[in-house]
């Protein structure tokens, strides 16, 4: 993926409208909101745009979003000093990200001013999705889970250390659906003495448990060892998780997510596109479909899965064991020595005919999960495939979003 200036949607609170009632700080499941004597503010490095705080806010002050270059996000300290919100500035950005930002705007169908929608995909779940429970446990009242399994998924020789971690909730209720995520509260605090914020992880197992009938679930966690610039630095939560032993207990909050959910009607098709740990929700959905494989159901599964090498691809073995008539698996490696780089979008183009056929079918639901940078390339590939097969992308995209059929989750 090319390096470019990343544009984010920053979540801000309007100090002129906010009445400092503390509702949002109480509500935010991951502690992204704080206040001083002057203002309530959202920490851009923590907020994941889950929208949980938006409807409880009595004033609407919380519903403000600005496109900013990630490196220039307004800091918490800066926000504390504001008397009013800054205007949306025109971003001096590379052509590539300007286009991305423009797409964001277009996707929302909002002229200008206060924008409310925050995603390129659907904000609604598929019509047949089961009703999820969300925010049952919060950072003020988390739930303890016990680690009942933790093993490395990727080859010992590979640089990428991805773990499969199984958490058990004992007798405590923790109902989840495929596509939802949970968050972990890592112990300890930052150098400046604040407790660590919660980190989110997608659930990798089906709703009836990693082991069917047990009150447990699994996560796919990649150990973070470098920062964005590639310099050595260990991530707080992923290292904590990857080093856990069987029997350890972990503080969990959630579940989260009420739109990235799978359709429940058996004749629906899933088009799944992921990289790395973005495979977690795809594994969950695939597993659910495998367990409920119904005679005569016409629902198809098609997976595009990218990793740097075969050794770094989580769940390679189990994936290969799935029956070919159950799931159409396409693997893309970007760093296989002696072979040209291939990304998921390249593979999608190679399979354009089959992808186009899926796009043509109203029963197809699309899921994209992985690193933030993949969104653009995947959407572009979908657009090209659609256009070339005589299905104009813009109206199709609109329809997919409107009907809860296009779901993006990148981080």
């Amino acid at each position, binding site marked *: 993926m090319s390096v470019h200036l990343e544009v984010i949607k920053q979540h801000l609170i309007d100090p002129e409208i906010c009445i*400092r*009632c503390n509702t949002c700080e*109480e*509500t935010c499941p991951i502690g992204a909101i704080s206040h001083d004597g002057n203002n309530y503010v959202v920490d851009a490095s923590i907020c994941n745009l889950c929208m949980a705080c938006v*409807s409880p806010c009595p004033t609407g002050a919380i*519903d403000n979003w600005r496109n900013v270059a990630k490196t220039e996000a307004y800091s918490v300290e800066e926000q504390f000093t504001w008397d009013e919100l800054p205007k949306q500035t025109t971003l001096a950005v590379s052509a590539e990200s300007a286009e991305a930002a423009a797409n964001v705007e277009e996707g929302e169908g909002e002229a200008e001013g206060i924008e409310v929608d925050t995603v390129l995909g659907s904000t609604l779940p598929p019509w047949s999705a089961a009703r999820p429970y969300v*925010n*049952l446990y919060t950072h003020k009242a988390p739930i303890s889970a016990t680690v009942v399994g933790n093993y490395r998924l990727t080859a010992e020789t590979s640089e990428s250390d991805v773990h499969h971690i199984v958490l058990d909730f004992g007798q*405590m209720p923790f109902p989840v659906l495929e596509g939802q995520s949970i968050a972990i509260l890592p112990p300890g605090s930052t150098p400046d003495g604040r407790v660590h914020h919660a980190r989110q992880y997608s659930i990798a197992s089906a709703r009836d448990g990693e082991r069917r009938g047990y009150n447990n679930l699994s996560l796919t966690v990649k150990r973070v060892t470098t920062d964005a610039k590639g310099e050595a630095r260990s991530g707080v939560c992923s290292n904590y998780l990857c080093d856990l032993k069987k029997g350890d207990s972990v503080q969990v909050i959630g579940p989260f997510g009420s739109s990235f959910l799978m359709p429940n009607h058996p004749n629906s098709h899933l088009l799944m596109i992921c990289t790395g740990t973005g495979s977690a929700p795809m594994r969950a959905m695939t597993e659910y479909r495998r367990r409920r494989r119904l005679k005569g159901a016409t629902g198809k599964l098609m997976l595009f899965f990218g990793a740097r090498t075969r050794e770094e691809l989580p769940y390679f073995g189990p994936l290969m064991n799935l029956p070919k008539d159950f799931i159409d698996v396409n693997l893309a490696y970007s760093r296989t020595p002696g072979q040209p780089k291939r990304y998921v979008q390249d593979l999608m183009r190679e399979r354009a005919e089959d992808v186009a056929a899926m796009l043509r079918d109203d029963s197809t639901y699309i899921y994209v999960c992985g690193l933030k940078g993949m969104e653009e390339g995947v959407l572009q590939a979908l657009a090209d495939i659609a256009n070339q097969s005589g299905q104009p992308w813009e109206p199709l995209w609109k329809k997919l979003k409107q009907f809860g059929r296009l779901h993006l989750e990148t981080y």
Partner: protein
Amino acid sequence: MTSIDYSEKIPNNVNLAGDRTLQRALEQWQPNFISWWKDMGPEGSQSFDVYLRTAVSVDPSGWAHFDYVKMPEYRWGIFLTPAQQDRTIQFGEHKGQPAWQEVPGEHRANLRRIIVTQGDTEPASVEQQRHLGLTAPSLYDLRNLFQVNVEEGRHLWAMVYLLQRYFGRDGREEAEALLERRSGDEDNPRILGAFNERTPDWLSFFMFTYFTDRDGKFQLSALTESGFDPLARTTKFMLTEEAHHMFVGESGVSRVIQRTCAVMNQLKTDDPKTLRAAGVIDLETIQRYLNFHYAVTLDLFGADQSSNAAMFYSAGLKGRFEEGKRSDDHQLNGQSYKILGIEGGKLIEREVPMLNALNEVLRDDYIKDSVGGVGRWNKVIEKAGLPFRLSVPHKAFHRQIGTFAGNRVSPDGRLVSEEEWQKNQSNWLPTAEDRAFVASLMGRVAESGKFANWIAPPPMGINKQPIDFEYVRFN
């Protein structure tokens, strides 16, 4: 035979469907509530379709459902925030022990009293506000009034649930009595003074929701710390709704100020007479209303020294505001607090045992919070380029309860003679003439997108709806 479909009619997360005793108690109480609502709820508006927010569950996706509802059909629910596993008592003598899931025998009478006092304020404010619908300055404001009203009604349900579920026969009797007292009634008044005052006009209403509902926020916050877990969880959920009430007040006053400033700039005058003739409320009058509501509300916190407050705290019944965020020993024995007193004809500060000063501690927290919002009102005036500034009067001004009752203190905190008080009273508190003038502006504006001349439109609508949305449909 059941008269209520429990999950549908009364959304709840207290397993109402599985609790026969509670069902029976509620079944007896509910028709009386409805008849109270018909008698004392918003006047002449029971059949309007109102764009209301209804809580149907406690998670963020479930607690703000917007739809048109006729007020008597509002789904008054019973909600407690989810239980925190292994919660312990955070303060007082029982600190560190598991929070009580049932009422401890020795604290029964006090807990009941706390709940009844809180519960009594909820229907009281509905009664105080029942005529306001007739003079709403816009559909948007009318809807906000009704939202406040139905939520006060739900808060009553929340308290009644606690009384019926945890206090047996006494609790059921207290629940009935909540529907029998009447705000301002000579024979059977509401328990607290401020809830027997009239709310005759919309400026009073906005001041009330800003100042007096903020008292609610602080009282509820102190109760969210309670060692009695069902009370803590109930009040916690109520706080999310209380926020809307304060919003109505803060933004309401702010819009009145904004409109006044606009006219001051248009006419290039700060003369109250000219402004009144132009149909807006002069800033001096707003200041007098502010003085009145602030002082009346300060009294709600009770006497500045109170052995009851000390006992409630030590027993773990009622904590301080943000108890969990304070870093002392949470027992407060041997600690002291500075409170105001009078000595030798002057206001002085003296140290008293912290435990006895807890009402004052809560009052001081409240004051800090109130002052913040007044600062934001001043920003509106500042933005209009005008030199006037609003301020809250001195804590001892116009108090009826505690040390200062019976003393005359000016808004700037001087002990003054009766003579000076009489001479200045009309500058400090709303006069009959002020009230008559404000009342003269009150007339119903019922066309979507239109606002009375004395108030500016809000910057945004409810639930992302446009400002000219039909927030109330008359049938």
